[in-house]
């Protein structure tokens, strides 16, 4: 476990950025300023931040439909992220991708695919590329509990296992795939148990404990960098909101929701940091206002940015 204060504060700040960012997206959506649909990451911040804190800028991540948090954790620009979600020309993908297809290749964020599970083989391919190029990068691949029932999960992890590719397969188990409970679609309790089918380590970790996630990820990164191959990491977590913005999530028992809200990863981490004397109440307040300012600036930037010109739709099909 890291005791580097700067790092811990940075992790906390990132988590807060994600949370505040998502709250703004939620709000803007309600004002009809976000086209299409959105899948909020609020509640799952410890996963993205825990994992990405174990990565360097050169490392890769592969993301999903629920990708805002991954982006921010990997170091994406808040303005360009928000602008993309609002469909603006100044967004990461010039408005072509939107919430479900954000990417920033400059920071190794290889993009979000909205086809559930499709990122798994792509991550293995990035791992293969690393191996062939002989760098010491790694690739972290995020996906959900639901995604672990896709054929690509099986094939992609098996490939990475067999070829000892430097990949972290990070299952964000938030107990539901849309309205479907995990227990409705698989008999096992821990997705990480599936690792044994590929002869690789599988670890289940409290996904609302950012330091626990960080530790597990760090260990997996270490293995990966020395050629020992992939790890399957399952992070048990919970989304605070419905699956997408319009989902009231009535399929979740109220008590369950209440219980998980108590386990809020940000509150928990803050308490921990207080206890560790890494953070004071005052510093925490400061961070909060700093983050608020940054998010507000992102919103302003995004709102003021122009939409792309219609004809730009014809660009970027081919290189």
């Amino acid at each position, binding site marked *: 476990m890291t005791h580097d204060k700067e790092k811990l504060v940075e992790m906390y700040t990132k988590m807060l950025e994600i949370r505040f960012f998502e709250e703004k997206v939620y709000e803007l959506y309600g004002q009809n300023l976000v086209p299409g649909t959105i899948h909020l990451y609020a509640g799952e911040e410890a996963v993205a931040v825990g994992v990405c804190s174990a990565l360097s800028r050169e490392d890769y991540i592969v993301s999903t439909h629920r990708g805002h948090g991954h982006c921010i954790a990997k170091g994406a620009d808040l303005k360009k992220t928000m602008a993309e979600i609002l469909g603006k020309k100044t967004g990461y993908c010039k408005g072509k991708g939107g919430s479900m297809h954000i990417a920033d290749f400059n920071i190794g964020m290889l993009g979000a695919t909205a086809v559930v599970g499709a990122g798994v083989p792509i991550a293995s391919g990035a791992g293969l590329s690393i191996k062939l190029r002989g760098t010491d990068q790694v690739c972290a691949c995020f996906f959900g509990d639901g995604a672990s029932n896709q054929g690509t999960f099986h094939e992609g992890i098996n490939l990475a296992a067999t070829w000892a590719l430097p990949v972290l397969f990070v299952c964000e188990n938030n107990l539901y795939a*849309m309205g479907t409970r995990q227990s409705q679609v698989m008999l096992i309790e821990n997705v990480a148990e599936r690792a044994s089918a590929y002869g690789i380590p599988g670890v289940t970790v409290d996904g609302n404990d950012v330091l626990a996630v960080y530790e597990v990820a760090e260990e997996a990164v270490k293995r990966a960098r020395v050629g020992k191959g992939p790890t399957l990491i399952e992070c048990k977590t919970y989304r605070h909101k419905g699956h997408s913005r319009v989902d009231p999530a009535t399929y979740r028992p109220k008590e369950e929701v209440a219980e998980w809200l108590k386990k809020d990863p940000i509150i928990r981490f803050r308490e921990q940091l207080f206890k560790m004397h890494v953070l004071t109440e005052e510093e925490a307040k400061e961070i909060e206002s700093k983050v608020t300012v940054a998010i507000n600036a992102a919103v302003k930037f995004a709102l003021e940015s122009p939409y792309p010109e219609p004809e730009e739709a014809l660009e970027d099909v081919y290189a």
Partner: protein
Amino acid sequence: MKEIAYRDALREALREEMRRDQTVFLLGEDIGRFWGGAFKVTNGLAEEFGDERVRDTPISESTIIGAAVGAAITGMRPVAEIMFGDLTALAMDQIANQAAKIRYMFGGQAKAPMVIRTPFGGGVNIASHHSQSLEAWFMHVPGLYVAVPSTPYDAKGLLKTAIRGDNPVFFCEHKLLYPLKGMIPEEEYTLPFGKADVKREGKDVTVFATMFMVHQALTAAERLSRENISVEVIDPRTLVPLDKAALLASVKKTGRIVIVSEDCKTAGVSAEIAAIVAEEAIDYLDAPIKRVAEPDTPIPFSPPLEKFVIPDENRIIKAVKEIV
């Protein structure tokens, strides 16, 4: 007659067929009691028919179809839902190589009476992985039927026929059509496959259109009528089997055709229709064939971009005017 939304018409078809025939059952992601289908088509059916006959599946598109195939060839009549048409790509082998070919490969021993329902189309800003129209892929697969209902009336009648038939049917729906309302009879009815519907009669030009584009075509026709251009709008209702006779009869009457389809132009639905006319009615044509389709790009997210790529009444009007 009664007024009903497209999604509700589909649900009525499912409900009536499930009541009529115990072998009919549904499977797909989130179609059951907790969600009722991403577009609410199956809403309430789990409550009526139970979780055994309205089955929530894992996110395993290939296996949703594969399981339907296995059930179909052993006496059941599954109706499988793929949540978004784009995701049929994940099940392409089971659809094209298994479901469609199982009868033929086995020399007619087997039949696979199953329906694959899925929504196509753009217009709701959900970008490249949730907005495509891929009917053309499935037209190119012998052994499948392809239905493309544009109204509540067609949707219900065709879906009932699809469920009762003994062939696998790829049943296309459209996101923007789900809330659309229209009249249907109180009493039970079915609609035959391979029978086009003239959605509007006209004499100067034929506009062939499917799904959501039928409505764009009708709007265009209405506007053009004010300029004294008489447009005939033909809706094939099923692309396979295709009512060639109706298509050719209309072209022979008007001498002109604009083919409108909400898919990428190259090798899309409009290509096949154009080819048929060019093969079989070229002598009746007084002008080049026109295709109105999406440019060859993925569907972009941002509203102005998406609006630009999806054909609309203005593009139809422009195409019509270029040839009349």
